[in-house]
């Protein structure tokens, strides 16, 4: 077995520096790599580009990096939950590349799987298609989208073993599996780090080959954005 464990978040983030491009898993605040984000804030790494579906909220998730102005550019699909984000974007302090959510997912998956580019109908005829190749397939226009390139991917899984095999839980799965192996270095934090053999090989969501470093997250707040219950 090839052992992927590192001792803690400090070791896990070795090699990060200013100006890099990061991928971060999660949808809203669900399934975000909380410990990695805290460490990014602590290290005060600057001028980074973040590929992440959302930008957190003002005081949690990627919002923490935004507040400290560590982010130069965001590549996201939806950023409506974050007032500071909107302010920085409208003032021009922050570069923003908004792209369709399915395209975001597929561009991660393409990077993971060695597919340099693919065609999708999403965004045809909109701002998103500007400057991109348009081609008809079966009489329907599609635009060409390219795989992402990133330096580090920060991923949160539910359980992982020492070989880097991962399992995600519920809708906290989202973009996390697609970012594994989509960057030069994939760092995974898990709620439960287990021994090889404890995960059923038939039900592993992401095999360890896509993971370079794995560690047990110290604590998880798992904040809820919209607590809705039955009346």
């Amino acid at each position, binding site marked *: 077995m090839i052992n992927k464990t590192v001792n803690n978040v400090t070791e896990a983030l070795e090699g990060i520096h200013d100006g890099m491009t990061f991928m971060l898993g999660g949808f809203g605040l669900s399934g975000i790599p909380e410990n990695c984000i805290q460490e990014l804030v602590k290290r005060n790494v600057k001028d980074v580009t973040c590929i992440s579906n959302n930008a957190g909220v003002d005081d949690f998730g990627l919002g923490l990096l935004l507040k400290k102005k560590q982010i130069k550019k965001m590549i*996201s699909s939806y950023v409506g939950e974050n007032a500071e984000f909107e302010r920085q974007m409208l003032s021009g302090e922050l570069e923003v590349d908004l792209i369709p959510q399915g395209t975001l997912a597929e561009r*991660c998956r393409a990077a993971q799987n060695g597919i340099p580019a693919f065609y999708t109908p999403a965004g045809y005829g909109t701002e998103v298609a500007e400057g991109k190749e348009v081609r008809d397939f079966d009489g329907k226009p599609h635009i060409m989208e390219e795989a992402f390139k990133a330096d580090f991917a920060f991923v949160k899984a539910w359980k992982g073993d020492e070989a880097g095999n991962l399992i995600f839980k*519920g809708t906290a799965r989202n*973009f996390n599996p697609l970012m594994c192996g989509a960057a030069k270095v994939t760092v995974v934090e898990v709620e439960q780090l287990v021994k090889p053999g404890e995960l059923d090989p038939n039900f592993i969501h992401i095999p360890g080959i896509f993971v370079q470093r794995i560690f047990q997250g110290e604590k998880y707040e798992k904040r809820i954005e*919209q607590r809705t219950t039955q009346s």
Partner: protein
Amino acid sequence: MLDKNGIAKRIAQEVQDGFYVNLGIGIPTLVANYVRDDIELEFQSENGILGMGPFPREEDVDADLINAGKQTITALPSASFFDSALSFGMIRGQHVDLTILGAMEVAQNGNIANWKIPGKMVKGMGGAMDLVGSAKNIIVAMMHTNKAGDSKLLKTCSLPLTGVECVTKIVTNLAVLDIVDKKFRLLERAPGVSVEAIQQATEGDLIVEGDIPEMKL
């Protein structure tokens, strides 16, 4: 004239047996409350669940179980979870049968704008461009006019587009309409709303053929 729940109630009649349905944020979410019991359907939420159930009881709230509006939800026994690539594969591959979403503007050629007001509001498109770029069957749920009283059913959209020539039906507080020959066609009036009132609230070309029935709710 309908309220938001009324719009949702009318749209619920469009859901057919065996449909997989994606509901957008806002009014569309309310549609789930009004679908007939004898219809078999499943709700897909693009963040990664098929077989979405109602909101949880207080004690069942789970941060790892939310919908695309970031609301806590439950999963039905037939549910499944998946990553965002497969989720949008369901959408892009036209496996989802019906998409219901909100809009800021709809044009009479079926164009839709719902994600950006330049220089003002930029929340992003989320999954909307994927949905309207692929879905065969797109119903827009919205108020007929905006807060300033201006029509949202236009000759051409003024805001940045979300998708082109894609909307198939529109249900508003005033009317049900579809799109034929690049014009709006009036199908039903909301209770107590006259054809004239609808015409007045519609900036785009409106086809009115014969007697327009009142919605049955």
